[in-house]
């Protein structure tokens, strides 16, 4: 039976070492570029010949665009509008990455915690920067919940700071764990199918259901990552 974790191995496609730093072009990097390419193709192809009555493709692009716009506006209000390009890019990148990973023999870069943690740190860093840019030192009042009694503050403030710092960790682990667990499970059931011969029909049925479920998870997790970024952005914009 094949190793179910084999699919997460990173291979160097073009080895490259610069000043002691491993900058090799890996299969992970390849699939990230493919994701960017696929997302760009999807968007540019959709608006290539814009019509008042949109074609199916253009309609799909418009739906994704306006959906993310609605989510952002519902969470952050009009103040969040300037950050739409970032949120939209983040959503499309994760979504295409997750969906590309559903193609057999492809590589899921969102199942690598370093990738998801990098993405989480980007959105966490942006939210923190926006908060400090808009509120200055006053942004620290985020750590003091309104209405908290003064004598509780020595306990509450460290907890609030820890809860703030654990945001990127939970963002990263959520996406990574979902993708990794799902793909491992698919592989395990595929292994059962091969090992059981004729009776492998049962795990095969399970696997086909799981595949559909994994597509749901892929879309849902991209959405969850996006909406949580929106919620953190809202905290940075309005404080509480």
């Amino acid at each position, binding site marked *: 039976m094949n190793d179910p974790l084999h699919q997460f191995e990173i291979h160097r496609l073009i080895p490259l070492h610069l000043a002691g730093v491993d900058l090799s072009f890996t299969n992970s990097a390849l699939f990230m570029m493919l994701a960017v390419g696929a997302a760009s193709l999807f968007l540019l192809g959709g608006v290539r010949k814009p019509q008042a009555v949109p074609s199916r493709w253009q309609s799909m692009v418009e739906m994704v665009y306006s959906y993310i716009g609605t*989510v952002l506006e*519902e*969470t*952050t*209000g*009009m*103040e969040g509008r300037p950050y739409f390009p970032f949120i939209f890019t983040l959503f499309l990148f994760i979504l295409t990455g997750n969906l590309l990973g559903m193609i057999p023999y492809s590589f899921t870069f969102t199942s690598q915690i370093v990738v998801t943690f990098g993405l989480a740190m980007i959105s966490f860093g942006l939210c923190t920067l926006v908060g400090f840019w808009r509120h200055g030192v006053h942004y620290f009042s985020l750590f003091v919940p309104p209405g908290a009694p003064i004598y509780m503050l020595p306990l509450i403030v*460290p*907890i*609030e700071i*820890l*809860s703030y*710092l*654990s*945001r990127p*960790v*939970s963002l990263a*682990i*959520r996406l990574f*764990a*979902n993708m990794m667990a799902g793909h491992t499970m698919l592989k395990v059931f595929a292994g059962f199918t091969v090992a059981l011969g004729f009776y492998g029909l049962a795990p095969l049925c399970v696997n086909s259901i799981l595949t559909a479920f994994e597509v749901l998870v892929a879309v*849902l997790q991209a959405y*969850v990552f996006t909406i*949580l970024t929106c*919620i953190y952005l*809202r905290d940075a914009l*309005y*404080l*509480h």
Partner: protein
Amino acid sequence: MSQDPQLDALKNRLRKAEKTLKPASPSFSQKPAMQFINAGVDLFAGVLMGAGVGLFVDRVFTISPWGLIVFFCLGAVAGLLNMCRVLTRPPPQHKNHSHE
């Protein structure tokens, strides 16, 4: 139970129909499921972050193991807090947010 046999028969038929309908109309709505996926991860992340900060404090101030003990507990509380926030967060509504 009512005395009317016709009503009883109707009730039985209704129960049977409901049973066959159940899988087709699951009470699984997307929003709560999504929140439950989030909840556990938030707790875990809080504990992990607390342990990380605790180990860091231990190393910097050489007060092992007190930093780890204190921050592990604080991290667990922070994780619980995050979890509760996710679970009790009101769904986004159409409204204009005002500046504080």
